[in-house]
């Protein structure tokens, strides 16, 4: 492709500004999700072909500033500086113009070509805010495009503008701050004039006044004497303003943002309380809020499990015929049996993805798009905080009840590595739909439904304690919840479907390789006739310590593939599905407890491996195996007293 017909743009902006909606609209199905190198932060790229142009679109993480406090911020800053995209499209939430402009000012300081998109301009109007886009354009000296992403309105204007401006060199109009600050910026700029830096000099000067660690380090390597001057200037600023120079600069940006906002905004008629406000009042209330949350989440789980069990049964019947046809077609040899176990692994993935994960994602994204997930995060924050994580972890937790795989994947929304890791470990302890099959199919059915709920309670207690312990053990400060509270809005169908599709695709791609390989390996061990040896090798643990039949050793190995296989294989080996004939109530409870915790299933291990490296994944597996054995034995002995 002709270089001149290629344009690269990055989308930058704070969270909840409609950035993802715009990205999805522009790139549709032509997108590619990966991680930023060396991180677990999602990197979303896509391509758009428009009027003969090939437009590469990159969606930067949603961030509030261009400091380096979080990985997301550091990545975004580095990308804009080093990759020099043709345009930085700054998506702004028009209903929160002032707060969003603070970020815009930081982009302008970087002297990169910015196109400002005033998204949700309709919602601003509803709120009674009339923003003069032309005036804003004149003040900032950058293109300003009003848009309503949900309706697709204004979005092609962004690309039109990019094509129009491509190749022209804009004169950057960096924001001008107060005299006493400008004076010191120019003094520093003068001193660093002769150092070779990949950044704009004015920006470096500002960052030095802000005491930015990274920039300070770089400058100290090239011309250490400047730092003395900087320190002196910072002290002067601190004397004038009475607080730290980094705050003086941040404060100055706020003032400029506030001033611009006042200049371009006309307050029109506004309803005193909108319906969103009223809904917010009920759904975040100390009492009704929790009640509504329980109803909504309970309804969500019930719907998913009802739908899932129904569809799963349908698929079961469908695939049963496939197995018979396969053996008729391929013959009854070891090879065909191995091949079938590979096919079966894929079918099993489909059987989890379609009935459970698919509806879970759809409902989750509806709740998120509507604005409800932010309310759950708000309500759950204090509880989550006791486990060393914060309210946003409710998303991985909710997903984890359906399947641990998307649960662990969604840990990416947590800000720091530490939070991501703790959340993922806790998610692996959540009873997923497969574990629920065991709990209800064994304990719920034969011992009593209260015992089944007791096991859930046990899981929650263990998750809580593990969270407490791991937040103490893992070094690092807990990150505080900072989250914009979005207004409630009608969910956008296309966004939800696209998000669901990409998440499902990712689930299959990450889980499939390891699931297929381990499925074949375990079948090979089975065919080689080694299973009985393994069972007897494990019997000191399974029989003597846990008080279970020795076949349990084999079941637990199959269970690594998918936990519900523990029940399926038990029925297959014993030739009966009436488990009361084979196991005592005590054994059922012990087996369920061990099944719940003994290891994440192989698909979950794949995610842990990919996100945190094999060492941490292995450590989690070993710890959980040891823990489950210990816990199972204790439960078994305690139950001696009860039964």
């Amino acid at each position, binding site marked *: 492709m002709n270089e001149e017909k290629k344009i690269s743009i990055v989308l930058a902006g704070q969270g909840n500004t409609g950035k993802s909606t715009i990205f999805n609209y522009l790139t549709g199905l032509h997108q590619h999700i990966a991680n930023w190198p060396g991180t677990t932060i999602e990197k979303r790229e896509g391509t758009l072909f428009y009027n003969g142009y090939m437009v590469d679109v990159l969606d930067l993480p949603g961030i509030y500033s261009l400091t380096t406090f979080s990985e997301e911020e550091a990545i975004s800053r580095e990308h804009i500086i080093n990759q020099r995209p043709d345009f930085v499209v700054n998506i702004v939430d028009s209903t929160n113009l002032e707060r969003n402009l603070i970020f815009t000012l930081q982009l302008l300081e970087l002297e990169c070509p910015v196109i400002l998109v005033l998204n949700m301009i309709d919602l601003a109007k509803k709120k009674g805010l009339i923003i003069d886009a032309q005036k804003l354009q004149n003040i900032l000296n950058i293109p300003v495009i009003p848009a309503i992403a949900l309706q697709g309105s204004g979005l092609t204007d962004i690309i039109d503008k990019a094509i129009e401006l491509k190749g022209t060199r804009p004169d950057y109009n960096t924001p001008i701050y107060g005299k006493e600050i400008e004076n010191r910026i120019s003094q520093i700029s003068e001193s660093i004039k002769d150092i070779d830096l990949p950044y704009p000099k004015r920006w470096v000067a500002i960052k030095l006044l802000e005491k930015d660690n990274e920039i300070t380090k770089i400058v100290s390597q090239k011309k250490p004497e400047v730092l003395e001057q900087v320190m002196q200037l910072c002290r002067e600023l601190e004397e004038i303003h009475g607080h730290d120079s980094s*705050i003086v600069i941040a404060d100055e940006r706020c003032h400029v943002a506030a001033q611009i906002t006042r200049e371009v905004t006309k307050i029109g008629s506004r309803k005193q309380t909108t319906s969103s406000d009223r809904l917010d009042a009920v759904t975040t209330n100390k009492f009704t809020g929790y009640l509504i949350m329980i109803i909504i989440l309970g309804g969500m789980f019930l719907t998913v499990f009802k739908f899932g069990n129904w569809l799963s049964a349908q698929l079961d019947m469908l695939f049963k015929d496939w197995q018979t046809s396969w053996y008729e077609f391929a013959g009854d040899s070891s090879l065909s049996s191995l091949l079938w176990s590979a096919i079966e692994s894929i079918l099993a993935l489909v059987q989890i993805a379609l009935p459970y994960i698919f509806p879970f994602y759809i409902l989750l994204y509806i709740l998120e798009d509507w604005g409800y997930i932010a309310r759950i995060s708000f309500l759950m924050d204090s509880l989550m905080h006791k486990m060393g994580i914060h309210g946003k972890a409710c998303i991985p937790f909710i997903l984890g009840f359906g399947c641990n795989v998307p649960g662990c994947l969604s840990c990416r929304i947590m800000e720091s590595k530490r939070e991501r890791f703790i959340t993922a470990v806790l998610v692996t302890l959540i009873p997923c739909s497969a574990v629920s099959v065991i709990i209800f199919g064994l304990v719920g059915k034969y011992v009593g439904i209260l015992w089944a709920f007791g096991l859930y309670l046990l899981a929650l207690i263990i998750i809580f304690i593990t969270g407490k312990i791991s937040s103490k053990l893992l070094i690092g400060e807990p990150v*505080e919840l900072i989250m914009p509270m979005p207004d409630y809005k009608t969910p956008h169908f296309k966004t939800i479907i696209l998000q669901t599709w990409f998440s499902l695709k990712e689930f299959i791609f990450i889980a499939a390789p390891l699931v297929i390989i381990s499925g074949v390996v375990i079948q090979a061990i089975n065919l080689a006739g080694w299973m009985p040896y393994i069972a007897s090798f494990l019997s000191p643990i399974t029989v003597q310590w846990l008080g279970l039949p020795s076949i349990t050793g084999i079941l637990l190995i199959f269970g690594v593939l998918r936990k519900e296989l523990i029940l399926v294989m038990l029925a297959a080996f014993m030739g009966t599905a009436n488990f009361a004939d084979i196991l005592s109530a005590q054994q059922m409870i012990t087996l369920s407890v061990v099944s719940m915790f003994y290891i994440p299933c192989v698909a979950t291990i794949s995610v842990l491996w990919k996100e945190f490296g094999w060492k941490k994944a292995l450590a989690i597996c070993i710890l959980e195996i040891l823990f489950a054995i210990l816990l199972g034995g204790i439960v078994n002995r305690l139950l001696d007293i009860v039964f």
Partner: protein
Amino acid sequence: MNNNDKKEEMRLTDMKEGQSGIIFEIDGGRTATKRVADLGLTPGTEIKVVRKTLFSGPVQIEANGSKLVLGKGLASKIMVTPK
């Protein structure tokens, strides 16, 4: 005499739902202060507590025309002169 007009500053977490005030200072390290400032919450900004949760959790606030949720630790560092 209007002695009553002069009120003591208090922590954001100690304010009641619906109460508003002016940010007086940020009682925390540079990182926390900077983080809060990047959200537009600097001394002199008017801030309103919209809602709090049970068990003294996070605080939902309104400032500069936008709504934010702040974790308890961060919110408790914001000192406010109530109106």
